[in-house]
C-alpha cells in the first residue's frame, strides 16, 4: 500500500515532464461564464519554466518519498504541481491567476506542516503571497477594463495612465513573489521555517513563477518595455526603475545573507539576491540581458535545488542547522561537500560553471545599455556573495566539528544523494557547454519575447557582439593545469605527513585544546559591520515596519470592533438616530438628498 502510494507520488512528480513532452501545439479551452474561457497552450516561455519544473520536481519528490508516506503532503504537492502547471500553460490571465492561487495556498498548507513554523512566519508567508495574488488580480482587471479581454496580449491601444497602472500592479505582484526589497520579508521566514525539502521547492521552483510573471511584462509592453515611456540611455526608461529595484535588492540581500547564522536563512537571502540580478536584467530588456536573466533563472534553479536538498540531508543527519553547530563534515559527508562546492561555485557565478555565463551576459547587457552604475551595484553584490558562499562551505564542512551530532554524522540516504549527483552533473555540463544552453534553451524564449536570439557558433562557445568565451577550452585548461600541477607535485621528491591531531596548529604560540573555540562559523562576517555602508544596511530591517503595520491594523480592528457593543438599547438608539438625522437632512434638502 505504502509502496503504491509512493510510486504514485513519484509518478505525479513526473507530470511536468510529461506535459512538456506530450503537449505539442494544441490548445485546450475550458468554458467558465459570460463567454470567458480558460485557454491553455504551451509557448516557448512557458516551456522553459515547465522545463525547470520537469527537472526539479522528481528530484525533490525522490527524497520526499522516503520514510512513512505523508499522505497530506503528497496530496498538497500534487495540487501545487497542478497549480504551477496551470499557471504556466495559461494563455490568459484567468488561468494564470487560478494557477497562481492554487500554488499559493497549497504551498502555504505544505509550509505549515513543518513543526518550526511560527504564527508570524505563516501569516507573513500567506499575506505577502496573497497580496501579490490580489495585486495580480487587480492588474488583470485593469487590463480587462482597458481591453475587454483576459487574453495575454500586447497592450498597445490603451492610454498611458492605464498602461502604467497595469505595469505597476503586475510588476508589484511579481516583485513580491521574487522577493524584491522591501517586500521580501516572507522569504527568509518562509524558507527558514518550511519543511527542509520543501524549501528546495520554494526557492527553486515557486519563486521562479514570479520571474515568469516578470518575463510576461515584455510581452504585454512590446519593445522590451520601451513602448511604455521611451528610452533612457540605451535601455527602456520604464525598466530603469525595475533594474534599480533589482540591484538594490541584490546588494542589501547579499549583506543580509552574510550576517545570517542559520544555513537556510542564509540561502533564503541569497535567493533574494540572485533573483535581484534577474530583475535587473529583465529591466534592461535587451536580448543579451534577458538572455542572461533566463540563463540565471536556469542556473539558480539548479543551484538552489542542489543546495537545499543537500542541506536538507545534513539537517536530517545531524539535526543541526546553524553554522555554529556544525563543522568538519568534509570527512563524514564528502558527497555533500562536493555538492555544496559545486553549488557555491554556481551561486557565486564563477567560471567554469554556468553561473558565470549568466553573469557575463547580464554584465554585457548592462554595458550595452550604458547603465554602468547598475553594473557597479551588481558587481558589488556578486563579489560580496563570495563571502557568504565561503561561509556556506566553511561553516558546515571545514574547521572543527562543533556538536556531538556533527562528529558522528554519516552521509545522507541515497534518495538525497541521487538528486545531488544529477544536479551536479547538469551544472558541470552546462558550464562546459554554455552555447548549448543558449541555442536550445534561451534563444527560443528570446524569440517569443520579440528579441534577437543570441546564437552560438558551437555548443561550447558563448558568443556575443562584445566577445565571448569557450567553455570547453576553459574547462580543459583549468582541468589540465590542475592535473599537471598535482601530478608534478606527486612525482616530485618528498613526502607528506598528515597532522596528528586537529589541534596541531600554529596558534599564537599556544597549544589549543578541544575547549578552545576554534570554529569560526558564527563570527564570520561580523566584522563587516564596521564598514559604514554595510553597518547601516545590517542595522535596518523592515520587520519593524511590518510589525507596526500589523499593530496599526489590529488597533483599527479593535476600534471598529468596539463599535459592536453588546447592548440592544444602543443598537436601537443608533437605528433611531440614523433615522432622525437622515430624515432631517432629507427635510432640509426637500428631497432624496
Amino acid at each position, binding site marked *: 500500500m505504502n509502496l503504491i502510494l509512493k510510486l504514485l507520488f513519484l509518478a505525479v512528480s513526473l507530470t511536468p515532464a510529461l506535459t512538456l513532452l506530450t503537449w505539442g501545439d494544441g490548445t485546450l479551452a475550458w468554458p467558465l*461564464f*459570460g463567454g470567458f474561457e480558460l485557454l491553455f497552450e504551451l509557448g516557448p516561455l512557458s516551456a522553459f519554466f515547465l522545463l525547470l519544473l520537469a527537472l526539479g520536481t522528481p528530484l525533490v519528490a525522490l527524497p520526499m518519498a522516503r520514510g512513512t508516506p505523508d499522505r497530506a503532503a503528497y496530496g498538497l504537492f500534487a495540487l501545487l504541481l497542478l497549480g504551477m502547471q496551470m499557471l504556466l500553460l495559461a494563455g490568459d490571465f484567468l488561468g494564470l491567476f487560478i494557477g497562481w492561487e*492554487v500554488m499559493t495556498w497549497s504551498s502555504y498548507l505544505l509550509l505549515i506542516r513543518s513543526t518550526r513554523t511560527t504564527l508570524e512566519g505563516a501569516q507573513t508567508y*500567506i*499575506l505577502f503571497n496573497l497580496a501579490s495574488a490580489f495585486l495580480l488580480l487587480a492588474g488583470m482587471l485593469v487590463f480587462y477594463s482597458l481591453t475587454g479581454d483576459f487574453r495575454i496580449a500586447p497592450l498597445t491601444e490603451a492610454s498611458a495612465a492605464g498602461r502604467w497602472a497595469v505595469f505597476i500592479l503586475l510588476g508589484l505582484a511579481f516583485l513580491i513573489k521574487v522577493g524584491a526589497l522591501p517586500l521580501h520579508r516572507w522569504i527568509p521566514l518562509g524558507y527558514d521555517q518550511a519543511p527542509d525539502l520543501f524549501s528546495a521547492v520554494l526557492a527553486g521552483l515557486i519563486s521562479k513563477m514570479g520571474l515568469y510573471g516578470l518575463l510576461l511584462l515584455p510581452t504585454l509592453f512590446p519593445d522590451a518595455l520601451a513602448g511604455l515611456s521611451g528610452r533612457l540611455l540605451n535601455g527602456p526608461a520604464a525598466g530603469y526603475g525595475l533594474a534599480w529595484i533589482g540591484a538594490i535588492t541584490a546588494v542589501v540581500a547579499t549583506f543580509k545573507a552574510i550576517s545570517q547564522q542559520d544555513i537556510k536563512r542564509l540561502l533564503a537571502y541569497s535567493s533574494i539576491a540572485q533573483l535581484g540580478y534577474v530583475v535587473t536584467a529583465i529591466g534592461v530588456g535587451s536580448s543579451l540581458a534577458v538572455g542572461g536573466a533566463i540563463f540565471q533563472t536556469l542556473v539558480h534553479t539548479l543551484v538552489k535545488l542542489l543546495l537545499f536538498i543537500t542541506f536538507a540531508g545534513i539537517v536530517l543527519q545531524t539535526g543541526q542547522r546553524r553554522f555554529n553547530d556544525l563543522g568538519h563534515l568534509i570527512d563524514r559527508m564528502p558527497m555533500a561537500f562536493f555538492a555544496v562546492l559545486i553549488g557555491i561555485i554556481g551561486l557565486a557565478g564563477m567560471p567554469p560553471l554556468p553561473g558565470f555565463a549568466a553573469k557575463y551576459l547580464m554584465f554585457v547587457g548592462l554595458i550595452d545599455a550604458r547603465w554602468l552604475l547598475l553594473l557597479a551595484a551588481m558587481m558589488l553584490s556578486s563579489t560580496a556573495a563570495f563571502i557568504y558562499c565561503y561561509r556556506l562551505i566553511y561553516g558546515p564542512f571545514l574547521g572543527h566539528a562543533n556538536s556531538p551530532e556533527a562528529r558522528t554524522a554519516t552521509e545522507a540516504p541515497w534518495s538525497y544523494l541521487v538528486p545531488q549527483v544529477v544536479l551536479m552533473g547538469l551544472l558541470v555540463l552546462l558550464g562546459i557547454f554554455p552555447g548549448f544552453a543558449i541555442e536550445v534553451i534561451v534563444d527560443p524564449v528570446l524569440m517569443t519575447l520579440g528579441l534577437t536570439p543570441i546564437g552560438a557558433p558551437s555548443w561550447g562557445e558563448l558568443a556575443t557582439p562584445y566577445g565571448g568565451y569557450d567553455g570547453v577550452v576553459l574547462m580543459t585548461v583549468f582541468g589540465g593545469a590542475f592535473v599537471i600541477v598535482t601530478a608534478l607535485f606527486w612525482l616530485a621528491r618528498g613526502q607528506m605527513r598528515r597532522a596528528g591531531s586537529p589541534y596541531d596548529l600554529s596558534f599564537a604560540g599556544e597549544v589549543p585544546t578541544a575547549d578552545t573555540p576554534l570554529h569560526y562559523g558564527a563570527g564570520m562576517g561580523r566584522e563587516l559591520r564596521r564598514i559604514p555602508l554595510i553597518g547601516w544596511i545590517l542595522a535596518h530591517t523592515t520587520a519593524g515596519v511590518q510589525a507596526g503595520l500589523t499593530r496599526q491594523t489590529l488597533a483599527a480592528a479593535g476600534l471598529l470592533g468596539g463599535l*459592536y457593543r453588546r447592548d440592544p438599547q444602543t443598537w436601537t438608539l443608533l437605528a433611531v438616530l440614523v433615522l432622525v438625522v437622515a*430624515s432631517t437632512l*432629507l427635510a432640509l434638502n*426637500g428631497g432624496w438628498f
Partner: protein
Amino acid sequence: MEFSASPVWFIALPLLAAFSAPLWTRWHLLDHLLFGVPLVLLILALGLFPTVHEAPLLETIVIAPPLGIHLHLDSASLLLVTLFCFAVTLVAAFLWLGATDSHLRGRRPFVLILLLLVGGNGLVLTGDLFNLYVFLEIAGVSAYVLSALRDDRPALEAGLKYLIIGSVAALFFLLAVVLVYLQTGQLNLAAVAREFAAIPPAMQGLIALLMLIGLGIKSELFPFNFWVPDVYRGSDPAVTALFSGLLVKAFLFVLVHLAVLIWADPAVARVWLMTLGALTLIVAELAALRQDDMRRMLAYSSLGQIGLIMLALGFFSETTTAGAFFHMINHTLVKLLLFLVAALLLRRCLSLRLEDLAGAARVSPLAAGLFVVGALGVLGLPPFGGFMSKLWMLQGFAEAQRIWPIALILFAALIEAGYYFRWIRVLYAPVAPAASADTKTTPEPWAAYAPLLLIAGLMLLLGVAPFLLETSVVEAAHALLDRDLTLQSVLGVAQ
C-alpha cells in the same frame, strides 16, 4: 386532483408539515420529514426552472392583482427558493445523521426550522407588501426561538437580544408599510411601484429610510448589524448556519427588490446601497481580525460577505448582480460548511475559542480539512466557487470602469485572509490539543460528514464549472433588475 406545480407549495407544504407535527411525532417521522419536505420542495423547484425560463409564474389568491394578493415566482426568486430548500435539506441531513444534541432533535426544532423555511420562501415569493411583513415576522419569530432553543443562559441571551432588535426592525418596516398604504392606497408591490413616484418627495424619503433601516437591521447592513455577533455567538452553530445561509439572503433580496421597484432613480439607490455595502464589508472584516471565538469570527466574516454582496447588488449592473447571485449561492454553501464544521468542532473540543482549538487538526483531521476548504471558499480562492463569483462581480465592476470597489473588495479579502489563515494555522498548530479535547467524546459517525462533503464537492464543482449556473444566475439578475418586466408580468401593462 390534478397536481399543479404552483409556487404556493413552497409555503404551504412546510406550513402543513409543521402544523401537523404531533402526528409525525407519534409516527416517529420527524427526522425523515424534516429532511424530506425541503427535499421534495428542492426537486419541485428544480423542476420549475424550465417553466420559469419561459415566463414568471403568478399564483393569485382569490382576486387578481393589484387588488388580490399573489405569489410571484420569477427567475430570481426561484433561484433563492431553490437555495433555501437546499440549505434546509442539508442542515436537516446534518441534524439527522450526526448524533446531534437533544435540543436540536424533536418537535420544536422541526416546527421552527420548517417555519423558517416558510418565512424565507414567503419573503422572496410574495408580491404584496403586507404579506411581506407577515413573512418577516414568521421568519423572525422562528429565528428568535431557534436562537434560544438550547435554553441555557447564552442561548436565551441571544434569543432575547434577537427578539428585541428584530421587533424594532419589524416595527420600522410596519410603519413604512402603513405610510405606503396611506399614501397610495395600494399594497401590491407592482402597483405601489407604479404610483410611488406620485408621493411627495419628503414622504418618499421617509418611507425609503424606514424600509432601509427595518430591512437593514434584518439583513445585517453596517450601522444596523451590531446584534449579529452576539446572536451568532449564543446560538447553536447548526442554527446559525441557517441564519447566515438562508435568512439574511432572503432579507437582502427583499431589500434590493424593493429598492429596484420603488426607488425609481437607480443613481440614488446605488449611492445608498453601495455605501452601506462597502461600509459593512470593510468594518466587519477589520473587526473580525481580533475575534477569538470561532462563532464570532464567522459572524463577522458573514457580515463582510453580506456587505460584498450588497456592494455588487447595489451597483445595479447586470453583470455584478449576476455575480452577486452566484456569490449568494457560494456564500450559503460556504457558511453552511463552516458553521457545521464549527458544530462538529464544538462537540469535539467543547469550546470554540482560539486557544482551545490549537492543534485540533490532530483530533478531527477531517473537520479541520473541511474548515480549510471552507476558508479557501470564503476567501474566494480558486478552485472553489467563491472565486468564480468574486471574479464575476469584479469583472462587472471592471467592465464599468469602476476601480474603487475592486480595490476595496481585494483589500477586504486580504484582511479576511489575515484572520482565516490565522485560524487555519491554529488548527494545525504543532502542539498537543487541549486536554478536554480527546477524552470521553466518541468520534462522530462518518455519516455526519456526508452533508459537509457534499457541500465541499459542490463548491469545487461550481468553481470548476461555473457555466452550469450561468443561465439561471443571469436570468435571475435580469429578472431582479428589470423593473418594467416585473410590472408588466403582474399588472399586464408596461410602466
